[in-house]
């Protein structure tokens, strides 16, 4: 992974409290797993940013190396790796995701 890609990823997760690396974008996810995480975040009403890894082959591989995680989507909250679709879904269903957001001081966009 080139230094610039890892720097770019680090900047994204530093700058955005809830940062999702995904395939496609919020409006047009290009993968069912990415779509599901977007749906959960939308439903919870927290502000989040996304980046489309399909836009760059370097980023698509770089995010996997950066997180040491072989698949996309990948969710970061306050710079910490939370997980992919399975983990986010599970945490949403058990209420742990809401607790995590509360703990990290991330409040709903309309609150």
């Amino acid at each position, binding site marked *: 992974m080139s230094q610039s890609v890892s720097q770019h990823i680090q900047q994204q997760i530093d700058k955005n409290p809830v940062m999702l690396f995904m395939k496609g974008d919020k409006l047009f996810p290009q*993968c069912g797993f990415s779509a599901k995480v977007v749906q959960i975040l939308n439903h919870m009403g927290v502000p989040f940013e996304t980046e489309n890894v399909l836009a760059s082959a370097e980023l698509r591989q770089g995010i996997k190396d950066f997180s040491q*995680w*072989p*698949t996309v989507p990948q969710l970061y909250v306050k710079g910490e790796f939370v997980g992919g*679709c*399975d*983990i986010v879904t599970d945490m949403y269903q058990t209420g742990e995701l809401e607790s995590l957001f509360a703990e990290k001081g991330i409040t709903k966009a309309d609150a």
Partner: protein
Amino acid sequence: MTQTLGATEALAPRAQRIVNILREKLSPSVLELKDDSKKHAHHHARIEAGEDGETHFVIRLRSAKFNGITRVARHRLVNELLADEFRSGLHSASFILQDEKSA
């Protein structure tokens, strides 16, 4: 098709390798594997892999090895065990990873 795996079912090559690795390393009390590749027939990774490509799996696994470790740690452990499969065309696997206490 969900298979609760006994000793002798005939599985496609990648599925068989995955099952062998997970059995050997995690001694699971429950191991179910479903090949979901056909559901992703139009997916770019499927197209690259060809018609018989085994690219998408759903795996449910319960193991005492998961006792007391976080979800991310469980997934990292399994991802690490399957690293060669990810490198050789496995595109995604969806995991349900349970410890022996959450039964």
